[in-house]
C-alpha cells in the first residue's frame, strides 16, 4: 500500500497531524516520517509511477531514476538531521511548516512533468515562508514577505514557461529543456531564482539568517539544491551556466569576508558552493554532472553542520555576530569540534567530504579545457577555506575572548551535529557508497598523490595568508554593520522611488481634485443661488404679483405680434 504513495507526500500529509499531537510524542512522530520515506524510496524500483492524463496531456507524478534518487535520498537524510536538531524546539508552526516544506521539496524532486513540478515548487515556497516567519521578529517578518514575493515569482515563471513549452512541444514532460525556445528561457529564469543566480540571489542571504536557529538548518538544505537538481535535469551542458556558475562561486566570497552575522556569512558561502554545482551542470560531461550531484550531497551535510553549530551558538548566547562572539571553545568544546569538521569538509580538505566531490567538478573543468572557469573555481576553492573554513570557527570559538561562557549545546543538537560530522568524515574517507549512487558510472579516483598535494598546497598557503594578515593587523575586524548587496536596489532605491512617486502622484491628485472640486462647487453655488430655499426661482410669490407678471408678459407678446 505504502508503495503507491508518492515520495514526499508521506511527509506533507503527515505534517497535517503535527499540530494535533501532544508535544511528548510529536518529536518521535516527526522523526518516523522521513524514516518511512527513505525506506519506501529504496523499496521502489526505478521507473514512472502515478501516470494520468489531464486535458490530453500525460502527467507523471513520480519518476525514479539515478538523478532523482541521489537528491531524494540526501533530502530525506537532511530531514532526519534537521528534525533531530530541532527536537528541543516546541514551536508547532515551525514543525508543521518544516515537515510540509521538506515533503514538497522531495515531491518536486520526483516530479516527472512540469505541472507536478510546479505544484510542489509553489508548495515549497508557501510552506518555507512560515519557517522564516517562525523567527518571530519584525526583521524575520519583513524578510519573509520579500522572500515570499520572490519565491512565488519563480513559480509563476515556471508555470508560464511550462505552458509555452507545452505549446511548442505538445508535452509537459520534464526532461532536457535547453534554451532554444522562449519556454526554455522562462523555466530557466524560474530555476535561476531558486538557485540564487547572481542578481537573483538576495532572497537567500536576506531571509535564511532571520529564521530561528533550527529553521535555518531546514531552509539551507532544500530550495537551492532542488533548483540544482532541476538544472541538472533540464539544462545539462548549457554553456552559459558555466559562466553563471563561476560568477556565483566568486562574487559572494567578497561579502562573506566582510559580513558580520556568521549565519549570513554561511548564506553567502552557500551561494558560492551553488556556483560550483551550477558550473558543473554547465560543463555537462558525465564527470561534471556526477560532481554537481555528489557535491550537492556533500554540501547539504557540511552546510547543515556549519549552520547547526552557529545555531547552537545563537541558541545559547542569543547572537551569531562575529563582533559579539569569541572564546566560546572553553564551554562549548563539542560544538567547536563539530564546527571545525564541517569547516574542513566545506574547505575540501583531504579525508573530508568536500574533497571527494568538489575536485570532480574542477577536474571536469580542466578536462574540457575551460581555462578561465578552472582558474576562477580554483580561486573560489582557496577562498572558501577563508570564510567557511577559518572565519566561522575562528571568530565564534577563538579570536578575542568575548567573556561569554554559555553552556554546551543541548544533547539533541549535539547528536544531530555528531551524525552530520560523522557523515562528512565518512564520505571523505570512504566515498564509494556515494559514488555508487551518482547518476553516471564513476571512474574518477579522488586520492591520487597529485590531487592531495595540490589541494593541501592550495589550502595551507591560503591559511598562511590568513595568518599573515592577522599578525600584521591587515585583516578587517568584525564590525557591527549592514553590508549593502544588490537587494539595496529594491529595498532602498526602489522603495525611495516608490515613495517619491507616490508623494508626487498624491500631490498631483490633490491639486486636480481641488481644482475640479472648485469648479463643481461654483456650479452648485450657482444652482443653489437660484433654486435654493431663498433662491429667486424658489421664492413663494403672492397671487396678485403673479397675475401682474403674466399680464405684463402677455401685453409684451401682444404688442410684439401686433407690430
Amino acid at each position, binding site marked *: 500500500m505504502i508503495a503507491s504513495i508518492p515520495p514526499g507526500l508521506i511527509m506533507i500529509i503527515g505534517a497535517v497531524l503535527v499540530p494535533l499531537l501532544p508535544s511528548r510524542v510529536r518529536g518521535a512522530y516527526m522523526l518516523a516520517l522521513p524514516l518511512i520515506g527513505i525506506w519506501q524510496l529504496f523499496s521502489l524500483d526505478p521507473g514512472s509511477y502515478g501516470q494520468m492524463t489531464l486535458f490530453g496531456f500525460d502527467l507523471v507524478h513520480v519518476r525514479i531514476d539515478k538523478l532523482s534518487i541521489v537528491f531524494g535520498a540526501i533530502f530525506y537524510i537532511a530531514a532526519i538531521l534537521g528534525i533531530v536538531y530541532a527536537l528541543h524546539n516546541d514551536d508547532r508552526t515551525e514543525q508543521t511548516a518544516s515537515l510540509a516544506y521538506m515533503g514538497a521539496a522531495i515531491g518536486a524532486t520526483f516530479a516527472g512533468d512540469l505541472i507536478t513540478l510546479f505544484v510542489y515548487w509553489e508548495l515549497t515556497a508557501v510552506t518555507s515562508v512560515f519557517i522564516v516567519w517562525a523567527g518571530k521578529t519584525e526583521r524575520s517578518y519583513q524578510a519573509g514577505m520579500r522572500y515570499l514575493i520572490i519565491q512565488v515569482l519563480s513559480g509563476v515563471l515556471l508555470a508560464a514557461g511550462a505552458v509555452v513549452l507545452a505549446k511548442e512541444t505538445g508535452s509537459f514532460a520534464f526532461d532536457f529543456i535547453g534554451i532554444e525556445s522562449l519556454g526554455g528561457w522562462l523555466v530557466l529564469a524560474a530555476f535561476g531564482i531558486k538557485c540564487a543566480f547572481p542578481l537573483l540571489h538576495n532572497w537567500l542571504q536576506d531571509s535564511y539568517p532571520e529564521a530561528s536557529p533550527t529553521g535555518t538548518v531546514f531552509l539551507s538544505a532544500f530550495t537551492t539544491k532542488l533548483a540544482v537538481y532541476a538544472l541538472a535535469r533540464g539544462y545539462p551542458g548549457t554553456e552559459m551556466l558555466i559562466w553563471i556558475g563561476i560568477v556565483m562561486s566568486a562574487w559572494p566570497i567578497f561579502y562573506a569576508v566582510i559580513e558580520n552575522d556568521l549565519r549570513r556569512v554561511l548564506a553567502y558561502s552557500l551561494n558560492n558552493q551553488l556556483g560550483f554545482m551550477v558550473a558543473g551542470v554547465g560543463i555537462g560531461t558525465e564527470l561534471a554532472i556526477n560532481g554537481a550531484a555528489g557535491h550537492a550531497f556533500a554540501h547539504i551535510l557540511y552546510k547543515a553542520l556549519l549552520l547547526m553549530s552557529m545555531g547552537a551558538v545563537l541558541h545559547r548566547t542569543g547572537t551569531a555576530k562575529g563582533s559579539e562572539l569569541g572564546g566560546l571553545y572553553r564551554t562549548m568544546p563539542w560544538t567547536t569540534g563539530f564546527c571545525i569538521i564541517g569547516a574542513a569538509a566545506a574547505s575540501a580538505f583531504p579525508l573530508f567530504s568536500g574533497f571527494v566531490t568538489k575536485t570532480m567538478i574542477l577536474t571536469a573543468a580542466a578536462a574540457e579545457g575551460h581555462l578561465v572557469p578552472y582558474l576562477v573555481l580554483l580561486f573560489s576553492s582557496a577562498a572558501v577555506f577563508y570564510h567557511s573554513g577559518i572565519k566561522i570557527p575562528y571568530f565564534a570559538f577563538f579570536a578575542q575572548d568575548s567573556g561569554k561562557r554559555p553552556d554546551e549545546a543541548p544533547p539533541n543538537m549535539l547528536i544531530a551535529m555528531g551524525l552530520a560530522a560523522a557523515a562528512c568524515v565518512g564520505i571523505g574517507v570512504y566515498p564509494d557508497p556515494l559514488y555508487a549512487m551518482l547518476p553516471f558510472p564513476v571512474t574518477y579516483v579522488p586520492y591520487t598523490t597529485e590531487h592531495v598535494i595540490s589541494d593541501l598546497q592550495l589550502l595551507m598557503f591560503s*591559511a598562511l595568508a590568513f595568518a*599573515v594578515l592577522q599578525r600584521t593587523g591587515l585583516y578587517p575586524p568584525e564590525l557591527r554593520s549592514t553590508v549593502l548587496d544588490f537587494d539595496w536596489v529594491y529595498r532602498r532605491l526602489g522603495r525611495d522611488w516608490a515613495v517619491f512617486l507616490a508623494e508626487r502622484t498624491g500631490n498631483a491628485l490633490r491639486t486636480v481634485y481641488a481644482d475640479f472640486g472648485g469648479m463643481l462647487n461654483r456650479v452648485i453655488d450657482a444652482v443653489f443661488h437660484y433654486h435654493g430655499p431663498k433662491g429667486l426661482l424658489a421664492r413663494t410669490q403672492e397671487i396678485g404679483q403673479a397675475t401682474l407678471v403674466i399680464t405684463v408678459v402677455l401685453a409684451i407678446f401682444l404688442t410684439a405680434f401686433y407690430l
Partner: protein
Amino acid sequence: MYHHPDRRAEGEKPNWIDHPGNVRKVFWALVVVCAALLSLDLFLHKHDKFGFESLFGFFGFYGFVLPFLLVLSAKALRRILMRDEDYYDR
C-alpha cells in the same frame, strides 16, 4: 593574534592556546608545513592540462596571493558598501 583585554574570570585557568607565545608557535608550525608542501614540488611530477599547473609552487602561490588580495579588496569594499547595523530598519 589579537591584542585584547583578558576577559577570563577570576581563577579561570588560561589554556595552552591563550598564551601569545603558543599562538606564535602555531604560526611558525604553519610556515614549516607550507615549506614542506612546497618542497614536494621538487620531487612530484604533476600532469598538467593547461601547462602551468606543473610549474614549481603554482598551487601554493595561487592559494596565497589570491586570497590575500581578496581580503584586501573586500576590506576596501567596506568603504563603499558598509552601513549602520539598522540601515534597513529606519
